[in-house]
């Protein structure tokens, strides 16, 4: 009984981590709570499905649909990242959460209609990436291999992000801006450029989450609102801005949801928010968050 619950929980955690990691990174770097995050997640999913189906329709090798997963995330990031940051977000830096919230909610609403106009209101699905890998049998229950592989993919994303931030020059520039933007500017770092790059990278992560999840979840209207709120829950539980925290939170929520499905099905949807409420009540900065000194 325990094995299937844990496997369900882990694959759910992988999805949750992919939903939340971009949001938490953008908050860490730009201090922006990005309500439009879920829109980029959904756009990634739609783009991946559309590209994958095109590749299939053109008679190209089905394996290309894996490439489409990453390519679509790159496309979404290139299209929306710099545009959003330069045109909308930049004006809100230092103007408090309310202005940011309005701007990102505005973008969320606009992108919601863009999705409907471009991709229609029908649910879309491309299960080529799912069927190509086949199924496997774990403890007597049949799982798609892709679902299991997603856990590995989430771990890969987590560690590459960690390596990028801590081990590369670009990452260190980003971290220095996170740590103290003013000091970074004094040391000659072009913080405006870092902000654009970091936000675009955040959009890429959001879209990648959506595209990697799309073979399992498909894409449908309402997806962005759902993704935004789940990302908020996971990111807040782990500590906004903490990538490792998002991983830990995704594990807790994923396993919690899996157990709830088996033992208290009425509570499965509420689990992320119950955990969020309980954690924030006692640790407002989140599980791995750092307390910031209050500025007088």
């Amino acid at each position, binding site marked *: 009984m325990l094995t299937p619950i844990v496997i369900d929980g882990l694959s759910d955690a992988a999805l949750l981590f992919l939903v939340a990691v971009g949001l938490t990174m953008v908050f860490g770097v730009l201090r922006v709570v990005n309500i439009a995050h879920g829109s980029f997640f959904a756009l990634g999913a739609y783009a991946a499905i559309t590209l994958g189906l095109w590749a299939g329709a053109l008679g190209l090798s089905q394996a290309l649909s894996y490439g489409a997963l990453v390519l679509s995330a790159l496309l979404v990031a290139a299209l929306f990242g710099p545009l959003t940051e330069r045109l909308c977000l930049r004006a809100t830096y230092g103007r408090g959460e309310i202005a940011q919230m*309005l701007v990102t*909610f*505005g973008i969320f609403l*606009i992108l919601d209609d863009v999705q409907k106009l471009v991709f229609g209101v029908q649910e879309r699905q491309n299960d080529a990436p799912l069927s190509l890998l086949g199924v496997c049998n774990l403890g007597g229950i049949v799982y798609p291999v892709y679902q299991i592989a997603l856990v590995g993919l989430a771990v890969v994303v987590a560690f590459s992000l960690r390596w990028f931030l801590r081990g590369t020059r670009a990452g260190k520039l980003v971290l220095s801006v996170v740590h103290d933007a003013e000091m970074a500017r004094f040391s000659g770092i072009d913080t405006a450029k870092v902000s654009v790059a970091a936000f675009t990278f955040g959009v890429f992560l959001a879209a990648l989450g959506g595209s990697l999840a799309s073979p399992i979840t498909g894409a449908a209207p309402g997806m962005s609102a759902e993704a935004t709120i789940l990302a908020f829950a996971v990111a*807040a539980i782990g500590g906004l801005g903490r990538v490792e925290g998002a991983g830990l939170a995704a594990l807790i929520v994923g396993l919690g949801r899996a157990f709830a499905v088996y033992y208290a099905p009425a509570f499965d*949807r509420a689990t992320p928010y119950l955990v969020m409420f309980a954690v924030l009540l006692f640790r407002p900065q989140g599980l791995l968050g750092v307390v910031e000194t209050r500025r007088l």
Partner: protein
Amino acid sequence: MKGPRALLWVCLAAAAVAVALASPWASFILTVALAKGLAALGVALLLRAGLMSLGHALFYAAGGYGAAYLARWLGVTDLLLLLGAGFLSATVLGLFTGAVLVRYRAIFFAMLNLAASMVFFSLVTKLYNLTGGSDGMPLPVPTMFGLKPGQGLFYLTLACVFVCAGGLRRYLDSAMGQGLGAIATNEIRLEYLGISVNGLLFVNYAISAGLGGLGGALAAIAIGHVTPELFFWTTSAQLLLGAALGGAGSVAGPFAGMLLLEGVRTAASQYAPLLWEMAMGLCALAVALFVPQGLSGIVDLPQQWKRAVQ
């Protein structure tokens, strides 16, 4: 209330009544917009103290569900009783959540409110036997002292708006209301003066929850149905948008904001049904980027220009 401002309010009321008399359809739209305006006023009250609630839909929905339950369990159809039930259930809920949440600030306050409203959303969606699940619950056609009210709901909403706006104006001008701005500026100094900041915020939170419940009950009665979507975070964000659009600086602001939003929504759904969200989003961007003070800030613009010239 100063002379010209009072006159403005009277003119607005006359205009609203004239529009409502001209078409029942417009009076429905106005009723819903003003009801949402009441809830947005509650959000604005928190904004004044520098607190952003991303979960105010909790009280808005609680108002609607409170009224729906009174009708479902006791078969009540009286307008005032339904309204009272909605207001009370939201206020009681606000007293409980407020007691816990006023200790938090900034993004943590926003997130905790969000979490609370989403817990309710998920449970209301799932507990089908108790709440009607995602189908929601119907509300009866209301009666007023046993009679069919006709346009009565609209006039009642208008009365609520005036009573609440007037009462709130007085509250904001009182020492307690002045304290709210002080909390946003520097709450530590306020504590040094011997004022309990959390106590002040608690009262404020309860009032804002009550306003949310009143608005929610009015809107639910007008629409005749409640669904779990009322609890969803996008409802909270819309209330926040209305409050910020109108400007939290004045009592009239949130109503102006909500009237504009509902107007845009109605116009868009008439002429471009696929684009109403985009229209609202553009409103949000325009306000956030160009008129940070909201619509009520536009009223002050000439004065600011004058000052700038001097």
